């Protein structure tokens, strides 16, 4: 009996747009890459709760407070689906969280920037969620089934968040001089970090070719970044604000906006842990986890005892 060529069957499925499911055979590196990417995405959702959470207590109106709470709560929910999707590849949530806390696993660098004013909450919704959506829409078609399905749900909520962020900035852009200034300042600070969210230039991205062949990714970093610039360069006109890039110009020949050079030194510094809030973000996550330990232990002890009682019929 001939030995089946697992690798070929796997690649045929991918080429035929059939999703890979948890019990299917897959190359070890496909499993590893997906585990890394999905868990990193889950961590980003959870760490991402912190910069926005920083403004919940000070939201300027009850309506904005409710919107912000609901948004940050949604991010926690996204973290949950993503941890579950990653668990289907064989790694437990606890292991993933330990990797985050030890610094072994990464999360999106954007969350290592501080939220200094209320306008940052609008700018995060509009620019950061806007950039995330570009990537996530692509991921609804990623080859690993559980990840693709989680992304479909997440994308619906994210587009809603982006509109809410834009709406918050629109109010500021039509408000007092101080509000306008706050709005422009936030855009100035978040624009370049948002562009960095798409990752290194294609020429320097190490995992890209294999990920494209396996359809984990379907568009390159630079392609997605360009789509984002094109979208935002139009949307900012409604806000009557400016993007902080003197080289931003419509290029009639390319049918795209040209834009200036990203500060890649800053990008790599933040990745390495030297961003303004890397330490605070990880400290906050570790603190919550350590201080929650007795709570988790109590829940396990109680569940165990209750199980015994039920088994005894009591």
């Amino acid at each position: 009996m001939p030995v089946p060529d697992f690798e070929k069957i796997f690649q045929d499925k991918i080429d035929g747009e059939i999703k890979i499911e948890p019990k299917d055979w897959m190359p070890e590196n496909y499993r590893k890459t997906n585990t890394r990417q999905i868990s990193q995405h889950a961590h980003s959702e959870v760490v991402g709760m912190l910069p926005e959470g920083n403004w919940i207590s000070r939201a300027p109106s009850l309506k904005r407070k409710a919107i912000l709470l609901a948004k940050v709560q949604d991010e926690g929910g996204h973290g949950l689906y993503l941890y579950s999707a990653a668990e289907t590849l064989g790694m437990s949530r606890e292991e993933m969280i330990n990797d985050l806390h030890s610094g072994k696993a990464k999360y999106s660098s954007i969350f290592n920037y501080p939220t200094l004013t209320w306008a940052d909450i609008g700018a995060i919704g509009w620019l950061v969620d806007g950039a995330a959506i570009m990537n996530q829409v692509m991921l609804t078609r990623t080859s690993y089934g559980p990840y693709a399905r989680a992304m479909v749900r997440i994308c619906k909520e994210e587009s809603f968040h982006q509109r809410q962020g834009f709406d918050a900035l629109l109010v500021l852009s039509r408000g007092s001089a101080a509000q306008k200034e706050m709005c422009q300042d936030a855009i100035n600070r978040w624009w370049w970090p948002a562009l960095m969210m798409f990752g290194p230039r294609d020429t320097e991205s190490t995992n890209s070719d294999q990920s494209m062949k396996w359809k984990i990714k379907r568009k390159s970093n630079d392609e997605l970044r360009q789509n984002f610039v094109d979208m935002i360069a139009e949307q900012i006109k409604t806000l009557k604000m400016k993007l902080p890039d003197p080289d931003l110009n419509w290029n009639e020949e390319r049918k795209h906006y040209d834009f200036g050079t990203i500060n890649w030194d800053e990008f790599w510094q933040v990745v390495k842990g030297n961003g303004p809030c890397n330490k605070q973000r990880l400290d906050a996550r570790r603190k919550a986890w350590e201080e929650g330990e007795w709570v988790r232990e109590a829940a396990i002890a109680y569940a165990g005892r209750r199980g015994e009682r039920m088994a005894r019929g009591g």
Partner: protein
Amino acid sequence: MSSKINYTLHLADNALILGQRNSAWCGHGPVLEQDIAITNISLDLIGQARSLYQYAAELTGGGTTEDSLAYLRTEREFSNCLLVEQPNGDWAQTLLRQFLFSSYQFYLYQYLQCYSDTRIAAIAEKSLKEVSYHLRWSSEWVIRLGDGTEESHRRIASALDELWRYTGELFLPAGYEKDLAIDVAALEYDWSKKIKNVFAEANLTVPGNVFMQTGGKSGMHSEYLGHLLTELQYMQRTFPGCEW
């Protein structure tokens, strides 16, 4: 009319202050599922506060809004009970505060859903669905912590020592409650029964002979409230008269 406004504000302040307290857990909970649960409760409470402030604003008139009531009154004008403004402490203290308050709110809203003011009755009826969940969730946690490990039992017992003194005020009618003939004292019987049942499962005993602190309902607060309001009201105080 002013008693009705004051009473509506009292209900709204309770919900807002506890919602604000709980919201500080968002992103910092002991496990993701519970982080989401406490944030959800915070969101429900802020939603209740909004409905009540909107009604109080309509009754007051003259350009009053839900936000002017939440953001521009001083600590002496807030009439929430002392219980809800107490600090979060650890998870045990937050949970016990929620349980003591949700069980009170549960019986109160049951009573208010038949109240003669149809607007308050409607808000109570709608909120009761949420509060039933808050009560179930917090009861389960009180039991889990009371009957969990030695440490969790010690922590919830110490939270009880801390918070019990703020429960007496819930059943002492303030002036506006007397004026409107809202019989809060009558709620104590059901409330106590509920507390005792849950405490029995949690291996906790109801403290006896504790001096009860009062004053929040008539604007005499603990020192904590001023700090809470300073943070809550920061934007509206710094940038007066803006749209957000």
